[in-house]
């Protein structure tokens, strides 16, 4: 990266504006299901929360720590499989099943970290992929536990009952909405804490220059491991939530390479190493992929009277735009990397900074 010359950084922590906006957003989101009952809307929001949780979790080790794991599907899968296997075959309620799932993710992260963090740069990236693929293949072949390729179909999530009264019933999406929201908010808060903590400083130092960081008294592997464990913890939690919500997992959809890539994309498109980057990335990716997949763009053009549905253009768009969504996705990734290397949030911040700098220069004259 070319050094940005003489730009002033803002003080650490969040600005008052961000804090107010964040609280307002959380309050609005908490009230959202009260006003919008449409399950499709609720579903998209749950998908959005899951993406936020995973993006924020990855951001800790990938964004702040510069350790670009393309293998987070392993932890996602551990969360999803542990909870669903315990529930479906052993009848363990998910909130109890979550504990061993998270513990397992922590343990696996500690082991994987102490093995792979000796590697740097591209070697680490490739090792992380290999680890995740190994987990996928284990899920595929350890049939007695995971039911192999056939996957696990959940027959239902038992309601939470306290003293004979049903507290939460999981037959609607709303409990998942709130769980997703709560966990997303939690990961954002953890990121805020992390950014200002010794751990966060150390990880950023490691990202910038491992040797320099090491010479300043930072034990590299230890701190990378801690960050990976926190990251794995929340990724596994997201996996568990996903498994319970969708009710079906198999090796490809719970431990596939796609998931790892998706997680990295969320963080990088939004902007890594920032508190809200993954939130922005999740919003963009969820909205865009849904809009493309469901032909919403064509529908909007039609509804807006720009294109007639029966015209040849309308038919062409309907036929091809949804087929092309992965293509457009590919272009989006390429464009962001080429023109906004700090992610969308980074680009916006840079633009704002430039504007401020111009304004300051203008005022001085």
């Amino acid at each position: 990266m070319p050094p940005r010359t003489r730009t002033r950084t803002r003080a650490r922590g969040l600005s008052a504006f961000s804090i107010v906006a964040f609280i307002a957003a959380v309050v609005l989101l908490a009230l959202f299901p009260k006003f919008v009952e449409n399950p499709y809307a609720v579903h998209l929001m749950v998908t959005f929360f899951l993406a936020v949780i995973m993006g924020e979790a990855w951001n800790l080790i990938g964004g702040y720590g510069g350790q670009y794991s393309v293998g987070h599907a392993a932890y996602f899968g551990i969360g999803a499989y542990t909870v669903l296997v315990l529930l479906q075959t052993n009848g363990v309620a998910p909130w109890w099943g979550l504990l061993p799932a998270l513990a397992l993710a922590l343990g696996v992260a500690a082991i994987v970290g102490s093995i792979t963090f000796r590697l740097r740069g591209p070697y680490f990236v490739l090792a992380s992929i290999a680890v995740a693929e190994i987990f996928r293949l284990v899920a595929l072949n350890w049939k007695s536990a995971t039911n192999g390729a056939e996957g696990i179909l959940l027959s239902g999530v038992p309601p939470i009952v306290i003293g004979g009264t049903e507290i939460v019933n999981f037959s609607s999406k709303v409990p998942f909405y709130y769980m997703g929201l709560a966990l997303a908010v939690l990961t954002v808060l953890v990121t805020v804490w992390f950014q200002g903590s010794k751990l966060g400083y150390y990880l950023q130092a490691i990202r910038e220059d491992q040797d320099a960081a090491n010479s300043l008294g930072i034990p590299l592997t230890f701190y990378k491991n801690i960050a990976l464990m926190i990251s794995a913890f929340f990724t596994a939690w997201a996996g568990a939530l996903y498994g319970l919500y969708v009710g079906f997992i198999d090796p490809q959809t719970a431990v596939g390479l796609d998931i790892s890539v998706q997680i990295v994309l969320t963080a990088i498109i939004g902007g890594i190493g920032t508190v809200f980057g993954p939130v922005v990335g999740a919003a963009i990716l969820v909205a865009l992929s849904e809009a493309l997949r469901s032909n919403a763009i064509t529908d909007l053009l039609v509804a807006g009277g720009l294109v007639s549905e029966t015209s040849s253009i309308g038919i062409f768009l309907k036929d091809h735009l949804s087929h092309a969504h992965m293509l457009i996705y590919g272009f989006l990734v390429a464009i962001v990397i080429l023109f906004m290397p700090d992610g969308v949030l980074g680009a916006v911040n840079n633009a704002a900074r430039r504007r401020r700098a111009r304004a300051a220069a203008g005022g001085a004259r």
Partner: protein
Amino acid sequence: MTIFLQSLLSGILIGGAYALIGVGLTIIFGVMRIINFAHGDLVMLGMYASYFLFTLGNVDPFVSIVFVFPLLFLFGAILQKTVINRVLNALPQNQILLTIGIGLILSNTMMLLFTSDYRIISTSYSSGSFRLGEISVSTPLLLSFGITGLVTAILYWFLLKTDTGQAIRATAQDRDAAQLMGVNVKRMSVLATGLGAGLAAVAGALISPTYYIFPQVGQPFTLKAFVIVVLGGMGSVMGATVGGIIIGATESLAGAYISSGLKDLVVYVLFLLILLFKPAGLFGKSRV
């Protein structure tokens, strides 16, 4: 014993094509320090090129490589000049993501153009074989292995004996030093990407008569190429050649003696072990 020899032989023969894919990746990595996640998609493009030459032009897939190589060389070179070149000094994760994006664009463009139908090239020798005692040898595989050997020999000659080849190797060994010595590093990057793409495509063309073709066919080859390149040592052409054959044989033997469902697992575990205990690979210089 028959099982062992048969598996070993077919593994080695398949490994030849893997080696070409790996060599392409390792040259790109060596010169630019970029891991090309779209590498398998370049193999896919080579397969399609060979398919259309076969069905439309009646060109035998093994002959088609004389067209496929320059075509994809050009494509790779243009890709480097217009896109990849812009991220040469970017963060590694951005480089990786860019190549992932390129891969998505390539495979999905092919899908839009040619649908996602599986395409098969059936030559007169596609399922031919001859017997060698108890073992049967696949004619197309043997042919493709022979051609792979020829291509590799030409490549070695190019890298060792020509000025351009030596400049590429120098850049792969130490980009900064090469630049100081007056090597036009930018040009080498373009050449390396072209060469890498061309070799991947040749491998695709060579596999095509015994395999099948569809837009998403590339991804497994990308992962396999990573393993091969790490095994041989990133940036080492010799390493990738040997690595490809080792991986081919390992897969085949694991399929015979463990289970064909677990052969990928064996390969990945091998990969991790190499990364951990000999991260420089079999032929690489340590630069971890």
